[in-house]
Structures are given as C-alpha cells and as structure tokens.
C-alpha cells in the first residue's frame, strides 16, 4: 500500500471539516479516540499500515489542539519499521508531541542509533532530522561520536552531510558542554565551506558560525575559505550554478550566510585576503547599480538580500571609508525606492552607518529625505525607523533642526511611538543644548503637546537640569509661569511648573505680572483638577512659598486648614496639610528658612533617560534551561545600542558644556570629591560594567570600554581634554609591575601627542591574559598644559573577572564539580555584612555582570545564588564555582568560592566581598 493512500485519515479529516459546531467536532474526535484506543488495546495483530494510520490521526487531533495521552508506544514502534512512510510518521509524532517526554527516551535513542548506523541514507536522514528537531543533552551525549563522524566522513552522501551539520548545530546550541568536538575535526569542518555541493556548504556555514562564536581562535581558518568561496560566487555568472541560482542571483542565501560569518571577525589581516574581500564587497555594490535582469520582485529581493548583508559587513569592519560612503550612497538611493521594504531596510542600515565616523557626514546628506519619510510614510514601522535614524544622525550641527522636526511630527505621531519619541527628543535636546533656555523651551513644548507620553523620568530630568544650572533658573520660572497660564494645561506641566515656582518663584516675583499672589492663585486654580500625587507636590510648593513670600503665609495656612486638605480622604494629602500647617505655626522664620532651603544640586552620573530608552519589549523565551539564550537580545546590544554608549562616552568629552557632563563633574555636585576617591570607586564599578570613566580631574577625563573574547580583552580608551587649550606631549602608558609582567600581555596602538581643546582622542588595544593575576596595572599619563608638566598615576582597573566566561550546568554537574574542588587552597569562604539592600534581583544582576553565570534551581534554598564560570587565560582555563548565601535577618552574606587553580578563589573573594 502506498504512503499517500491513508484513506481513513482523509475521511476523518473531511468529517472534522464538515462539523458544523465545536461540539460536533469534539464528538467526532472523541468517537475516533475511543476507536483508536480500542484498536490499540484489543488488536495485537495491527499491521504497520494500520498503526501508521492511527498514529497519524492522533497527530492530527493533537494539532487541532487536543491533548493526546496514549499511542506513544505505537509511535515508537513505528521507528523500527523498515518502511519509510511508517518510520516517517513515527518520527513526526515524536518530534511534534513527545519532545519533552522522558519515559521512552532511551527507547527512542536506541531507535535513532539504529537508524544512524543503517546503510539506508534515507533512514539516516530521518534520524538526523529528528535529532535536529528535538535533540537535547541526553542525545548530545549519546551521539557525540556518530553525528560528527557522518559529517566529516568521505563516503557520506551530501544530503546526509547537510542534515548532520545542522543536527550538530542543534546539539551545540542546546548543550554545548556535553558535545565534545574533537579538535582534530576542526579543519575538516571548516573545509566544508569548500564543499563542491553548495547545499552542504549552505548548511555547514550555519554550524561553523555557531562554533566560531564559541571559539573564534580555533576556527579562524574559516575566514580565508569563506572569502574565497564568496569571491567565486559573486564573480560568477548566474548560469554557473544552475541549481542554486535564484531568479538570476547565484546562491543568494549562501552569500548572505558567508557575509554574516565574516562579521564574527575583525577585517582579515592578510593583505591578499583583505583585498579579495574588498573586491567582493565592491563587486556586490557594483551589481546593485546594474539594470535588473527581471522585473520580478524575487530577483531584486535576492540581489538586495546580499547587498544589505554586504553593507552590514562593511559597517562591521568600519575601516574602508570608500566602501562606507558607497554603501551610504546606495542606501540613499533606496530611500526613494517605491518598494516599502527597501525604504525600511535602508533607514535601518543607515542608522548603523550614522555611528561610523567615516560615514556619519554622508548619512547627514539625506536628512531632508528622512524628514520627509517621517511625514509621508504610510507604514508606522517605517516612520519608526525614520525617527531612529534622525536620532542616530543627530549631532551638534543639526540638533536644533532635527529636534524641531521631531517635535513637529510628534503632534501627529502614532500613539505607539510617542513615548519613545518623547524620550529621544528629551535626550537630544539635553545632549546638544548649547543654550539651556532652548532646552527648556523644547521640554515645555514637549510636555504641552505630548504630556500623556512624558514619563516620570523625563519631567524629573527637567527639574534636575534646572536645579543644577543656576543660569537658567529665572528663565525657567518665567516660562513655567507662562505655561501654567494656558487654560488647559497638562498635569505633568503642573508638576514641573509647581516644582520650579516653589524653588525659584522669587526670581520673577518683582515682575508685576507674576507677583507672589498671582503665582499662588495661578497654581491654586489647577489644584483641584489634579490627582492626589500632584496635589501633594503642590502642597510642598505652597510650603516653599511660605518661605519665599512670607506675605502670603496666611493665605496658604488657610488652604492647609481647609477640610478638603486637612481632612482629606487621601492619607498623604492629609498628612502633608497637617504637618506643613503645624510647621508653619511653630517654627520661627529662620528655622523655616533652613528647612525650606533651596534644593541642592543633584549628584548624578548618567541620564536615566538613556536607561529608559533601552528598556526591552516583552520577551519570548523558550522553556527549559537547556535552550540557548535567544541570540537576538544579545546581538541587538552589540548593534546600534553599544555604539550608543560609545557615542555617549565620546560626546562627554567633546561637549564639555553639555549637561551630561556638567552633572558628572564633581565641581557641580556642590561637595568636592577628591579625584583619587572618585576614580577608586568607579574603578570598582568597572568590575561589573564594560565601560566607565576611570579617571577624571579638572583637565582631562579618561573613559574605557572593554570587551573580551576568551583570554583577550579588547580595550578602547578615550582621553578627553576638558580645557580650552591644547594638551601637548601627551603620553599614556600602562605598566605591569612585578608578577603582572608575566601574567598580562598588552598591546596598545600609539596615540597622537596633542589633544585639541574640548576634544578627545581614542586609543585601542588588546590585553591578553596569560595567567591569573592579583595586582592592578598602573597607568601613567603625562602632558603639558599651559607649559606646565602634568603627571597622573593611578591604578588601572583591570580585574581578573574581565576574562571570565559564563558556564551553564545543571544541578548534578554543579555539585559534582563542587565536590571535586576540595583542596584547602581551592576554596575561600567569607562572611560579611550587607552593604546594600538585600534585593534578589540586584544580587543576581551583579553576579551576572561580574561575568560568571547565576544558575537558577541549583541550590535547594531558592534565596541562595550559585553559578560558575571559566577564567580564560592563554595557558589554562580556570574553572570557578561560587555559592552566595544571604541571611536577611542578620543582614549578612556568606560567600564561598572554589576554583580549580589554587589561590584564585581568594582573589575573586577580594574583588567581591565588599560589593553586596
């Protein structure tokens, strides 16, 4: 009987489709389930065909959304059939329904093993596809030899190799630590890129891409092969690869995958490889200019898929300015294309180009087109990209125009993107404010036209800016007063206006249009329209008024005494009214003046708005801890957002008058901090962060960014000149005294010896960790400022944890390893008091940021933290495990660290013991 002739199944499906109601459908299904159950139970002589048919029906019922709790054994029996169609249904049932069931796991694994070892390539393929669909840790262990053997063996059929490659990829993703890939296979795996069969190469690139991410050095050889394969494809004619030409484009998917693979590495160092790669990219850009070979959208899509990936690689390499500018011009053309898809993708790519110093200016040429897109695009997601791009292309020169355009658009913008736009406008107008009255104008307008979308962070920030800048306070009071005069005024405006008048209302009180009484009446006219929270704020303003304007004190006391406040049903209002009233009655004016003194400047480091902007959307996560983390979330951070922090760092130095900086500098904090203590506290911060300011005084600021892969830490240092004169004979050196010399290998690019006023220079370099270390390197900076020699020495915050890589494992594994590390010097345990509030999430975050994993469900006590990491040194990997036990009653922690190398646990303890 032929596979496509399951008549009973077709009849059943028709019956279901003919059911008029949900109830009828349910009846029909129940009838069928009863029938199948009976058949399975009674009829021991069911033949393969019957079994297949019933299992297939069960599958159909499951796919309709019903639970299936029997038939598993019959499905597994089908696996041992020697007929393809029966086997296929068996595997399908297992893949779709039983993916998490454990009962018959061993039986299934045995069947898969039999098929993997069969001589029939079709059976091998079915087994591989099944593992690729549901492979887990147990399968990774069971097939750790069989599958790689199939992949690299010379006599395996191409189709089987394709499946084997992706099957390995699945096992690598789900449980890379259980999958032991012999290093002798590396070269043979890499060489699959050269496979004659393009399908094998296509499947293999995906595997190699994942292996590269785990171990870039071991797979470095793939760069040359990928470049030459790519070169052969892009320089060929479409007739060269009949099977793999898609609408006149040779092997577009393979090209895209190869171009993505290359984005894992810096530009090739070998000049011949590099020039060959540049030729490829050039050719791809040239082809984009050729007339289309077909009017079909498939043709242009396939061509442009390759083009966009090539542009991504060009942006990733970020070194060939001519390619970057050409890419930008190409995208500029797409901005005018009639295909919405292309306009959207061009906007998205340009966002990345805007972050490169080589193409930032070229992107800015398209400002007008982008603004037009904002006004005319029909698809909100395209408008959203336009907003993103405007934000990315914004700099000092165009900030005023762009902010104006964005404000104008905001009035009609879609509700879904308003809040984000508000944030972006707020950030840009602050970052590029030359004149803070402009900033305030923008912000008040923002509140006026999009008050509902102004989050707390935004209006808090406005107040922080005003509080910290004495030169705008009277202007702020003036425009806040004017804004409040509008008949319908947003509650957020009342909050900002109320706060500002409470602090600085006296600065405009001499103006007969805004006397104390007028200010008070104006504010009070809004009072009853506001929510309790805002009323509370206004009550505080009134209290401040008592101090600023003693002449209206009795008016205010009357308000406080009023039943609606003094006996308000809102506890907070009642409490404030009562306390403020009492305060005003018992205190003499001097005491009152002290209590109600003007607010001190905010000591603050980073704009909370940037944090807010980065908050993620709801996530989609797989169940089961074994599933690899969605690469997406990690990768987005590597994309435009990381560059954003870089810009942030950059601009801090460039825009010395900018607010972000002035809030940062100790001078404006009111209380002077010794620069030594400043850098030592932030030096510890670099324990948990990848970028930071590591030194700052009144002349210079030094920022750091670091990213490690294995035992190599790539570092970017930014030296910013804060003065108005040149810093000359500038030099910066990092020293590794004593033991450090043999532990670290540093390699820094030379830097310019002069830093222009208000400018900064960047230095890149790498630090290789050869073995574990305890001391910190020292950094010496020297330069001439106004012909005075300045010397700065400080500890360079390079800690051992920068080389830690997270390790994931289950409970058994964890405790097995834990018990194995039992030598006295392998363990370090300390009990210390909590320095911070004992919040679970904060601890968890810190442990994660420290670099090792924080594993859930390991410890029997859910309050405890356990995790593991590997310190990558080029001589040996050092395993380390930890357990952190909070005791909330005693406000203490017990931290235990064990490491495979003696002494390392002690070092890690020193780093962490004062951090919780």
């Amino acid at each position, binding site marked *: 009987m*032929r596979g*496509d002739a399951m008549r009973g199944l077709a009849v059943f*499906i028709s019956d279901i*489709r003919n059911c008029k109601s949900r109830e009828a459908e349910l009846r029909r299904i129940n009838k069928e389930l009863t029938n199948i159950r009976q058949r399975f139970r009674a009829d021991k002589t069911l033949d393969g065909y019957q079994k297949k048919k019933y299992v297939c029906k069960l*599958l159909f019922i499951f*796919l309709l*959304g019903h639970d299936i709790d029997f038939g598993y054994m019959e499905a597994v029996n089908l696996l041992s059939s020697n*007929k*393809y*169609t029966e086997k*296929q249904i068996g595997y*399908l049932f297992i893949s779709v329904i039983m*993916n998490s069931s454990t009962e018959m796991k061993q039986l299934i694994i045995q069947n898969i093993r039999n098929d993997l070892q069969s001589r029939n390539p*079709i059976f091998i393929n079915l087994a591989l596809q099944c593992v*690729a*669909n549901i492979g887990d840790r147990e399968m990774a262990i069971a097939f750790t030899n069989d599958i790689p053997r199939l992949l690299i063996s010379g006599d395996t059929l191409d189709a089987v190799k*394709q*499946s084997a490659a*992706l*099957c390995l*990829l*699945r096992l690598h993703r789900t449980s890379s630590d259980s999958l032991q890939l012999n290093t002798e296979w590396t070269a043979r795996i890499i060489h699959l890129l050269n496979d004659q069969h*393009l*399908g094998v190469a*296509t*499947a293999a690139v*995906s595997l190699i891409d994942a292996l590269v991410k785990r171990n870039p050095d071991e797979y470095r050889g793939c760069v040359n092969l990928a470049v030459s394969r790519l070169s052969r494809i892009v320089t060929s004619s479409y007739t060269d690869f009949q*099977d*793999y030409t*898609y609408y006149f484009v040779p092997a*577009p*998917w393979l090209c*895209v*995958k190869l171009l*993505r693979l290359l984005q894992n590495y810096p530009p090739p160092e070998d000049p011949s490889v590099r020039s060959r790669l540049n030729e490829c990219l050039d050719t791809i850009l040239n082809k984009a200019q050729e007339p289309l070979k077909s009017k079909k959208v*498939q043709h242009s*899509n396939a061509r*442009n*898929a390759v083009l*966009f990936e090539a542009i991504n690689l060009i942006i990733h390499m970020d070194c060939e300015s001519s390619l970057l500018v050409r890419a930008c011009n190409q995208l500029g053309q797409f901005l005018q294309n009639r295909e*919405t*898809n292309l306009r*959207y993708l061009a906007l998205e790519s340009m966002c990345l180009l805007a972050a490169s110093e080589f193409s930032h200016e070229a992107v800015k040429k398209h400002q007008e087109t982008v603004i037009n897109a904002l006004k005319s695009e*029909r*698809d909100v*997601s*395209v408008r959203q990209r336009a907003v993103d791009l405007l934000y990315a292309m914004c700099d000092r020169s165009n900030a005023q125009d762009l902010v104006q355009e964005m404000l104008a658009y905001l009035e009609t913008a879609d509700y879904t993107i308003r809040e984000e736009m508000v944030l972006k406008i707020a950030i840009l107008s602050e970052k590029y404010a030359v004149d803070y009255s402009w900033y305030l104008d923008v912000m008040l307008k923002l509140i006026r036209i999009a008050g509902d979308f102004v989050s707390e962070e935004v209006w808090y920030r406005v107040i922080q800016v005003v509080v910290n800048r004495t030169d705008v306070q009277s202007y702020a009071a003036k425009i806040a007063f004017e804004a409040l005069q509008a008949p319908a005024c947003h509650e957020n405006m009342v909050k900002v206006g109320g706060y500002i008048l409470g602090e600085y209302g006296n600065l405009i009180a001499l103006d007969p249009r805004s006397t104390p009484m007028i200010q008070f009446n104006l504010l009070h006219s809004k009072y009853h329209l506001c929510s309790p929270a805002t009323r509370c704020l206004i009550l505080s303003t009134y209290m401040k008024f008592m101090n600023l304007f003693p002449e209206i004190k009795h008016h205010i006391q009357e308000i406080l005494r009023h039943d609606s406040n003094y006996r308000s049903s809102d506890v907070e209002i009642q409490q404030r009214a009562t306390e403020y009233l009492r305060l005003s009655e018992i205190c003499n004016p001097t005491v009152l003046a002290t209590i109600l003194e003007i607010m001190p400047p905010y000591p603050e480091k980073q704009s909370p708005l940037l944090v807010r902007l980065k908050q*993620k*959307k*709801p*996530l*989609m996560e*797989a*169940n089961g801890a074994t*599933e690899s983390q*969605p*690469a*997406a979330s990690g*990768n*987005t951070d590597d994309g435009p957002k990381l560059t954003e922090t870089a810009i942030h760092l950059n601009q801090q130095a460039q825009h010395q008058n900018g607010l972000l900086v002035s809030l940062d500098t100790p001078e404006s904090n009111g209380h002077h901090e010794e620069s030594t203590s400043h850098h030592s506290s932030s030096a510890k911060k670099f324990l948990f962060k990848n970028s930071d300011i590591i030194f700052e005084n009144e002349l210079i600021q030094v920022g750091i960014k670091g990213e490690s892969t294995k035992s190599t830490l790539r570092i970017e240092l930014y030296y910013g000149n804060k003065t108005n004169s040149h810093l000359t004979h500038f030099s910066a050196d990092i020293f590794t005294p004593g033991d450090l010399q043999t532990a670290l290998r540093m390699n820094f690019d030379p830097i310019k010896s002069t830093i222009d006023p208000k400018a900064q220079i960047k230095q890149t370099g790498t630090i290789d960790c050869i073995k574990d270390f305890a001391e910190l390197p020292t950094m010496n900076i020297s330069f001439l400022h106004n012909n005075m020699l300045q010397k700065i020495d400080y500890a360079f915050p390079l800690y051992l944890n920068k080389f830690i890589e997270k390790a994931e494992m289950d409970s058994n594994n964890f405790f097995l390893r834990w018990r194995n590390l039992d030598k006295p010097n392998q363990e370090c345990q300390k009990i210390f008091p909590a320095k911070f509030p004992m919040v679970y999430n904060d601890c968890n975050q810190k442990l994660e940021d420290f670099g090792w994993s924080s594993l859930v469900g390991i410890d029997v006590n859910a309050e405890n933290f356990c995790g593991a990491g590997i310190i990558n040194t080029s001589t040996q990997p050092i395993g380390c495990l930890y357990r952190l036990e909070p005791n909330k009653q005693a406000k203490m922690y017990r931290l235990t660290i064990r490491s495979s190398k003696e002494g390392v646990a002690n070092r890690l303890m020193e780093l962490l013991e004062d951090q919780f």
Partner: protein
Amino acid sequence: MIRFILIQNRAGKTRLAKWFMNFHDDEKQKLIEEVHALVTVRDAKHTNFVEFRNFKIVYRRYAGLYFCICVDVNDNNLAYLEAIHNFVEVLNEFFHNVCELDLVFNFYKVYSVVDEMFLAGEIRETSQIKVLKQLTTLTSLE
C-alpha cells in the same frame, strides 16, 4: 536563526506550525494568536517585516494564507522573505498548484518539505531542483 514558521489563513486557522525553540503548549497558542493579530491588519503597502517581542516576523501573503517566519532581529529580512517564496514554490510544484486544502490533508508531508528546506532553525537546502528530487524519491517509497 528561525524561531518558528507559521502558515495561517485569514481566519487565524493554523495550517502549519513548526517550532525551532521549545515552547510550552499554551505559549505556542499565545504566539499563534499574537502573530495572526499582528500580520492580518497590515496592508499591501506595508513592509513584509514586523517587530515581534524581542524578535521579528518576516511574512508574505499568498491568496488567503499568511506565511510567517519568526527570526532574530539582526537576521537578514530579504533573505528570509525569499526563503518563504522559495518554500512556496516548492510546495506549489510538489502539490501541483498547491491550495490550502493540500496543506490540511497532507499535513504530514508538509513537515517533510520543511525538514528538507529548514532544519534546526537554519536554511538547509535552497535548490528547488534538489529538494523536489528528494521529495519525489520519498513519495515513491513505501
């Protein structure tokens, strides 16, 4: 990486759901509903891409059917858009002018087609000739 592939009709009936991540059944149902709500409101002038939680959906409509692929945000949109079309052309050839009912009555074969072209969340084979040849071999088997 592809997180899942969905084929749905305009009414929201699922004609194929292929998952490359382990989801709980109720989560799958939720995803199916959300994707349907997301793509059916978009018109032909809109892009074929739409952000979806921390991923994105690349989709294309063929008559009454929506073919949706959920991928990572930094994946290549056009490559997956054409991967959909390539898949549709294979289905069309394999079922001789494919229609929605073919997918219903032959759901178990559709999974075979998917496994030939997409495996472990990656594109496995792109040559229509090779895929169809393999599928023809398989249908001739008992």
